[in-house]
């Protein structure tokens, strides 16, 4: 056996797969542990044999970036090994994600909780951007939550690095509801601002407990955005009508954020509005956001260990049962989930440059419920 193969076998032996916890078309996720320490891990097995072009781009991106990025708020890739024609990524084990928490209508979010999640998201994102990496698929179910409450940015299957301005990139990235208007207008030159827009949408969703801008098609997405934030003028966003896929989608007046986010503080709405500025160059940056007054004002962010957590059996409990316990109309500091969202949440990300394969990137630790 070659030295390289032998090293691979050694690595493989370090990890034990315990239980299959999720399966997609191109990947299977196991819960496992480190043999020596018993540390819990998730092992994502990507079936490489099926790709006629060899190692799949999503897998390559994920491995490339996670190998380099080590930060408390970025999911940690502990090891990579191959077994026959499979690529195995050993990732730190994370119990839940922000989407599940948002949807768990038994949980009440305090403003301090939202602030803690936002701070962790911006910290992780600032680190990615500082390392010249665009995530390009931020959404609540890619923000995973560890058992100690730490939030970790995950799923780098659409990530890429950015270098010089003027380098053409694909606009077919970011799940639609979190996609910024410049991408919807087909801009091929963009920046870290695309991720910030997504964070803005997530921020709003944490307050509303339902997706903020749920468009049904790409065209409808623009309409949904403009209905919420007003149609941009040339002054708001110089040059946007010259973007490749620009189409006028109607004139909508700008309504104050205050009308929808009735309980939010001024600082909160100020930061939110800065994440959702149309002109990408004026949109706030991750570092600047971390220095925003919102994070320094009371209430201070909750300690991660004090954040709302999924109750263990939430997934199996019928939702109707909890309705009686939650007063949807109560006013108070907390935000509760509203009635079940009728819109179908789009789980998959848009296709990548190679033509879009619906790779199961998400670490889904529950068996798919239909």
């Amino acid at each position, binding site marked *: 056996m070659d030295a*390289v193969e032998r090293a691979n076998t050694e690595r493989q032996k370090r990890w*034990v797969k315990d239980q299959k916890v999720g399966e997609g078309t191109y990947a299977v996720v196991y819960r496992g542990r480190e043999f020596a320490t018993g540390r819990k891990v998730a092992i994502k097995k990507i079936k490489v044999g099926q790709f*006629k072009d*060899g*190692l799949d781009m999503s897998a390559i991106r994920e491995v490339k970036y996670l*190998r*380099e990025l080590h930060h408390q708020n970025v999911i940690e890739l502990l090891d990579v090994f*191959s077994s*026959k024609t499979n690529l195995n990524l050993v990732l730190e084990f994370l119990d839940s994600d922000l989407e599940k928490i948002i949807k768990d209508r038994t949980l009440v979010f305090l403003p301090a909780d939202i602030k803690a999640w936002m701070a962790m998201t911006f910290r992780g994102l600032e680190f990615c951007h500082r390392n010249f990496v665009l995530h390009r698929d931020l959404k609540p179910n890619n923000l995973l939550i560890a058992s100690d409450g730490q939030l970790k940015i995950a799923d780098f299957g659409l990530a890429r*690095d950015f270098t010089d301005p003027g380098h053409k990139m694909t606009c077919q990235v970011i799940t639609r509801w979190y996609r910024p208007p410049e991408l919807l207008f087909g801009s091929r030159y963009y920046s870290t601002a695309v991720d910030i827009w997504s964070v803005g949408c997530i921020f709003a969703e944490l307050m509303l407990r339902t997706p903020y801008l749920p468009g049904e098609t790409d065209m409808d997405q623009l309409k949904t955005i403009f209905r919420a934030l007003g149609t941009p003028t040339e002054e708001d966003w110089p040059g946007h009508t010259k973007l490749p896929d620009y189409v006028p989608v109607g004139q909508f007046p700008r309504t104050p954020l205050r009308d929808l986010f009735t309980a939010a503080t001024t600082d909160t709405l100020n930061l939110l509005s800065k994440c959702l500025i149309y002109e990408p160059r004026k949109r706030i940056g991750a570092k600047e956001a971390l220095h925003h007054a919102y994070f320094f004002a009371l209430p201070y962010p909750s300690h991660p260990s004090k954040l709302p957590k999924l109750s263990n059996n939430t997934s199996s409990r019928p939702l109707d049962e909890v309705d009686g316990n939650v007063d949807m109309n109560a006013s108070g500091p907390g935000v509760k989930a509203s009635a079940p969202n009728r819109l179908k949440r789009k789980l998959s990300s848009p296709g990548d440059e190679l033509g879009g394969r619906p790779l199961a990137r998400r670490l889904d630790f529950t068996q798919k419920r239909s």
Partner: protein
Amino acid sequence: MAAENSTKATSAEAGSSSLGKKKPLYEASTQYKNWRYSPERLEDVRTQLNAAAVAVIRNTFEADEPGSSSGVAFLDAGEEQLLVKLYISKIPQLCGHFRFPEEVEATAISYLKRFYLKNTVMDWHPKNVMLTALFLATKTTNNPISLEAYTSNIPKTSPSDVLDLEFLVAQSLGFEFAVWHAHRALWGIWLDLQSLPDLSADLRPQDVYEIALKHVRASRFTDAELIYTPSQIALACLSIASPLICQRWADSKSAVSPSSQPLSEVLEDTLGAIKFMVMQAGQPPDVESVREVDRRLKLCKNPEKVVGSKAYLARIAEDEHRAEQKRNKKANDVRRALAEGDPFGSELTDKEKAERLAELDEDDD
């Protein structure tokens, strides 16, 4: 920006490390952590790798036919290097043909060099490894092209020539795909120069950049990237093109973080060593001498890797034997479970569970 980061990571950094400052980006990279060697260490790695490979292949020859290895002239580490260098020189040609960006070219060359720090050319001939490294680099740098389009444009190459080695190459790289390059560092330094107040445009003509870039490209034939940081290489190449401009840039950095010694002095030895390396070894090898090595390689390559050879067939037979044993064991387990009464089998112990899962994993691919 890359230039700035990586320069900070090296000699210029010395003073601030004690303050518990944020780690420079370059120091957090896998390149910094896993792919940097001292010249001595690099030599050691190659010599040991070569010796181990020769021992293994010699054994294989002997197992096949005792006494048969005595007449074989195995390659030494230097000869292996020579052959690798020849195939490094093919990469820019192919990249020109496909019009791949410089990023692809530089990355593929790094991959090829790194591969042969873990493998011997006597096991894996650099021709196909080079093709695989280049194909992998198109993907890791986000410039993907279909395998079909790739291989159909390269004479006498089938998709399997590339694909069969992809896993091995990725593994040998430790799945560390990100590479920081000197040409990017050079660009960073060049951008820096444009903002120096006392260095007007006519004092930094474009051809200085072009010449420096030419030397950066030449440096890819050398071991420089395995020993020095991208920004050190870039600065050395700039210094060949224009010592004055190099000095100016270094001075401007010294002004930012004053230390007892000017940056240009700190860097003097390093830059000197890189310049020497680039001027000495920065070109493709002499084709005649490589031809001689390649001819000998045909006689000393690992017979286990030669499809159809006795040793190859023996290894395949052994693999199959092992697989059959496994199948038999499984069948026996099922039979035993049935015989023991409970058709669903008894509770598994944790150890058994892990074994089952491991088997399951191998079966369901």
